[in-house]
């Protein structure tokens, strides 16, 4: 039901990271892309039960180091200082992308410029403006068992990043399985989004009305996800 008081959207990256961190299972190998996906790391269990693969050549990345622990020869895919857990290892770029393309990675979490209801992802290029490049994202989309697109639901302009059809150059065609925004969790199914979880205070109907894409939703979505209504930083 639409609430009586009009909802005001407040961007919330933390709820996205927190929700994604709960999707993994013990032993899963996960690759986090640069930008918003990097936030997922701090919500993972502290025991290393989820194994982080980093495209620059590491398996078993740990939490960011303290100032005294920093080693210039140990970074994550975004160039930030990193640590390696006991049992972790290093390898070259061909081995790293062999892992990625070869189907050895369970989940990848990637940032978004646009994602559409066909599962197309655009996240590497705004022609003539900002052209960072695809880095490892095209390989990750091809090779990871589950591709999760992580994004604030709306652009600063107010337009939704979930679309009927991407207009920017694609990173991969039909590759995205799940989209997690600060409004809810969407799966890509038969050319439309299925809202499987809706984060309070938003309602499925409100999400549908404010998104330029075909969205269906299920009863579970209407029940919302109160569990995630924790203060930021509390897991």
């Amino acid at each position, binding site marked *: 039901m639409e609430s009586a008081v009009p909802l005001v959207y407040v961007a919330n990256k933390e709820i996205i990271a927190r929700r994604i961190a709960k999707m993994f299972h013990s032993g899963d190998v996960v690759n986090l892309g640069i930008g918003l996906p990097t936030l997922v790391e701090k919500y993972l269990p502290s025991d290393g039960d989820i194994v982080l693969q980093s495209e620059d050549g590491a398996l078993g990345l740990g939490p960011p180091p303290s100032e005294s622990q920093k080693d210039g020869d140990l970074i994550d895919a975004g160039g930030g200082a990193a640590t390696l857990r006991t049992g972790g290892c*290093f390898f070259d770029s061909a081995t790293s992308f062999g892992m990625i393309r070869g189907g050895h990675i369970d989940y990848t979490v990637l940032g978004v410029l646009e994602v559409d209801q066909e599962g197309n992802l655009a996240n590497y290029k705004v022609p003539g403006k900002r*052209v960072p490049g*695809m880095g*490892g994202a095209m*390989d990750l989309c091809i090779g990871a068992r589950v591709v999760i697109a992580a994004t604030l639901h709306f652009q600063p302009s107010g337009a939704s990043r979930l679309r009927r059809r991407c207009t920017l150059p694609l990173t991969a*065609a039909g590759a995205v399985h799940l989209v997690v925004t600060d409004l809810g969790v969407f799966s890509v199914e038969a050319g439309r989004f299925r809202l499987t979880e809706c984060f309070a205070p938003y309602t499925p109907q409100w999400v549908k009305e404010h998104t330029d894409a075909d969205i269906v939703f299920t009863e579970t979505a209407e029940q919302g996800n109160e569990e995630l209504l924790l203060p930021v930083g509390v897991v």
Partner: protein
Amino acid sequence: MKDKPIISAVEASQLIFNGNCLMVGGFMDCGAPHSILAALGGSEVRDLTLIANDTAVHDFTSGRVTGVGHLVKNHQIKKVIASHIGANQETQRQMNAGEVEVELVPQGTLAEQIRAGGAGLGGVLTPTGLGTEAAEGKQVVIVGGRSLLVAVPLHADVALIKARKADRAGNLVFHGTARNFNPLMATAATLVIAEVEEIVDTGMLDPDSIHTPSLFVDYLVCADKLEW
């Protein structure tokens, strides 16, 4: 085993000539041969083609420039083949202004193109990039009912790489995520110059722990690790 010549960073930079194709190891400056790059950035060499994972850092706000970013800033590069230029605003500016040609390649494809170049292969077949701009102009072949892009081998005149340690014969050991593209590039250039932090006597490295065999390496440069 015959010793490899040990030269200075400046001498290394003098082995690179106008119009050369250059591979440079490193991932966002981690594992880049910073001493040789500093010497090359101070030289008059121009019209280089650069093959590297990325073009390091050039931040217009802070003015910070690192690694191969100095070569871009000095207009020593005419073409870049890389997977990522997002941390270098000057590369993007020169590309949009038509001052440098940039070919963006998926990172895994770039790694395999270099590996193929060093291994005598005719290329590799990859599903990465199908249905995107990365497939434009590329040959598509079907193997076992699966569409794949042909990625041609890459080879360079000179590879500038960085290792943690070498022995005098030129065997190399890398450290941490500073390995990245370095061992691949060591195989794929006519002349390979390895910058290392330490050179030990031949026989002091465990043969089972050597990452790059000596035959790939032509020159060694011993230099303190530069902070970036």
